[in-house]
């Protein structure tokens, strides 16, 4: 394994290939910063270029764009509450408050460092355990996915800072929005008021509206327009010793969660980062600090989404099966080069296979090296008076959303979701659970109904299959634990009272 990896390194360190790795991650980084424009747009624009490149260079460049955009996505989330990619929505939750407290540089540093560690752990798993991970991923059928999503939805109600009831209500709103479009099981149209809705509401519209646009309205409505204090000294960028110590656990847990979810085709980085955040909050001794600028709440999801974007290549490289739309494009580039991706890729094209994996290793180092010095530059962005910045941001959001599906309806919807997001915020409802419900709802429905079709309506299948039974057990434990801790809290409150009465 290590030997082949070193051979891969020798491939990627050739200057004529290294330049494409470099170009890929830089383009990805820039694309990730721009709100709404995702890796998929950039990759499809660059796809014709790969006609003229060999397979290895094409793969390395396109892959660089993909994971580079995960790095870039965190920057606008932290500085402007503007998730550059759907998976950086979670980064907004604690990243933006840290910046508001005047420590934007610190937040960017923590994000870059967590991303780096997450990415590296993801690559290591790709090198050491690609094949075993593939076998695990293949054991995830419809019942397992359904149970996994139930667990995820439960975790979703933990993501918000307010009451769990309010969070849960927002999850339901998200699920309702996710229903719009063609029913995947029967093809029946649900809530398709016009043909533009036939493919459902775009995740990008929803994320940009609820986070980005609503934040702009919110800021414009504020009386107090003083910009947050900005510190750009190197000392304020580096975390204190105590802060650094508090990040080790979250980064490692986030990376593990991310690596796992990344390898499952069809779930991806967005769900990984939500799960990492929910886990940290659930097991934290200070859950009340989350959402108010708590560094572990930033480090965990950032390491998770970068780990996931690396292990996301496992099904693509070992099976030739794309885990998401971006991977499908990357595989398309291979096909155009006359290579049919499949399980034989590793054997037939070892230089390509290991070269690409080694390029992730190199790419992550490049990203860390360019991101740390850039932090001071990004922070200066906040010096621009907000009233001059927001028209530019609105235009960029509109362009980004439009570029996804070339749909004007999506742009209008984004602005509508912005207004909805503002109203929600002013009534203390949080947008993050909406998004999670939106992503997970259809996933649950599809997999549940698929299970029922395949196993002819037999509910016992969820308990008969081992992985699904374990997931069911986790869900049940989490519910019981929540009930238990609520009762315990209640008792605690009552006991001193009882003492006094005596």
């Amino acid at each position, binding site marked *: 394994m290590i030997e082949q990896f070193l051979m891969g390194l020798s491939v990627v360190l050739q200057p004529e290939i290294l330049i494409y790795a470099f170009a890929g991650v830089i383009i990805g980084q820039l694309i990730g910063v721009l709100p709404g424009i995702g890796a*998929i*747009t950039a*990759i*499809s*624009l660059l*796809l*014709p270029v790969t006609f003229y490149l060999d397979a290895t260079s094409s793969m390395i460049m396109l892959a660089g764009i993909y994971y580079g955009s995960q790095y870039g996505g965190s920057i606008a989330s932290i500085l402007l509450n503007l998730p550059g990619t759907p998976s950086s929505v979670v980064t907004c939750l604690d990243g933006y408050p840290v910046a508001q407290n005047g420590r934007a540089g610190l937040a960017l540093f923590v994000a870059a460092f967590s991303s780096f560690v997450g990415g590296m752990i993801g690559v290591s798993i790709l090198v050491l355990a690609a094949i075993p991970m593939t076998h695990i991923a*293949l*054991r*995830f*059928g*419809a019942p397992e996915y359904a149970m996994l999503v139930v667990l995820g939805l439960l975790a979703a109600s933990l993501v918000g800072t307010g009451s769990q009831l309010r969070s849960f209500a927002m999850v339901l709103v998200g699920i309702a929005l996710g229903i719009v479009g*063609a*029913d*995947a*099981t*029967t*093809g*029946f*149209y649900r809530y398709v008021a016009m*043909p*533009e809705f*036939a*493919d459902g509401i775009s995740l990008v519209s929803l994320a940009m509206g609820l986070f980005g646009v609503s934040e702009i309205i919110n800021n414009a409505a504020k009386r107090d327009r003083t910009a947050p204090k900005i510190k750009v000294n190197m000392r304020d960028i580096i975390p204190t010793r105590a802060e650094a110590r508090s990040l080790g656990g979250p980064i490692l847990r986030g990376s593990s969660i991310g690596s796992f979810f990344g390898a499952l*085709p*069809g779930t991806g980085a967005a769900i990984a980062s939500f799960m990492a955040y929910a886990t940290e909050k659930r097991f934290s001794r200070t859950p009340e600090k989350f959402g108010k600028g708590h560094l572990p709440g930033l480090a965990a999801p950032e390491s998770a989404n970068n780990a996931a974007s690396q292990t996301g290549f496992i*099904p693509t490289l070992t*099976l*030739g*099966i*794309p885990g998401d*739309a971006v991977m*499908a*494009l990357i595989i*398309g580039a291979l*096909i*155009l*080069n*006359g290579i*049919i*991706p*499949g*399980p*034989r890729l590793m054997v037939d094209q070892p230089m390509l296979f290991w070269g690409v994996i080694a390029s992730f290793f190199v790419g992550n180092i490049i990203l860390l090296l360019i991101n740390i010095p850039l932090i001071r530059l990004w922070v200066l962005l906040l010096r621009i008076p907000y009233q001059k910045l927001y028209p530019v941001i609105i235009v960029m959001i509109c362009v980004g959303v439009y570029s996804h*599906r*070339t*749909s004007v309806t999506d742009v209008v919807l984004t602005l509508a979701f912005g207004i909805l997001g503002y109203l929600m915020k002013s009534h203390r409802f949080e947008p993050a659970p909406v998004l999670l419900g939106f992503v997970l709802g259809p996933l649950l429905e*599809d997999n549940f109904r*698929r299970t029922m*079709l*395949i196993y*002819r309506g037999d509910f016992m299948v969820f308990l008969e299959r081992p992985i699904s039974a374990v997931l069911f057990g986790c869900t049940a434990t989490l519910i019981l634990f929540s009930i238990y801790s609520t009762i315990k809290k209640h008792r605690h409150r009552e006991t001193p009272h009882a003492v006094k009465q005596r």
Partner: protein
Amino acid sequence: MLRTLLTAVPITLALALPTFAQDSFPDRSLRIVHGFGPGGNADTVSRIMAEQMTQGLGEPVVVESRPGAGGTVASGYVSGEDPDGYTMQLLVGGHAVAAALYNSLPFEPVDDYTFLSTLGQFPFFIAARSGEYASIDALIEAALAEPGSIVIGHSGVGSTQHLTGELLALETGADFIHVPYQGGAAASTALMGGEVDLIIDTGTVIRGQAEAGVYDILAVTSADRWPDAPDVPTVSETVADGFDVISWTALGAPAGLPENVEATLSAEIARVMAMDEVQTQIAALGARPQGSTGAELKALIERQIAVWTEVIDTAEIERR
């Protein structure tokens, strides 16, 4: 103000004029519109054609993606454009499926088009996990022996892959369970993981796995054996006589194209289709490069609409 307006009149006229002077077609940029996401198969084929036609026609040919509702958003748009030859559409096999599947389309799938030429044709392959079934005959026997025991994974309700599975059931009398996935890749994962027994999909999804020994290709859906895979028997020669499903990519334009414009475009497409470079690129996408006359394309589409309408009626698939 008035003077400005008056100056504008001749300019406007000059700009409007070329629309009438069709002898000089084309004298401005042309578009190939398609109804799928950037980077997909339809987009790639459009770009291959656009690149060469730009050279041949001497005017830029631009590719425009208008995705939505299985390509019907783009069709509604193109069929409403002027039939001046400056707007073309890249059509795929799904066009015939949409004609059969949708209750109310904002366009007429045949009458609203001037069909130009097919570009590529490709069959579907029927695959099972390696060693599960000795042949397509064995599979159908097993299905007939125990109705409802065999599960087919397909790439979405109303996809050509799905309807092909339904057609196979109709023609052989076998009773399959059809399970939808989000695209061919997800269905292929389900086959590998053992959740489904069978998939029917294009060569790009199946052949890499078959070469690696993961899948056995049981049959091909085209009427005759496919030149690229001469060892694979057809469905027609084994279990369902006359079975013939192929998908295709083609170029069309709004109905009512002037004859000289149609002739110019057809000749140009024929020239491009004869190029070795283009043939190689289309073949790389898993298709057989194949030009045709407009009439042949129209006949193909009409035939397929009839087949799919029957399949949808008999299988009682919900129309949308």
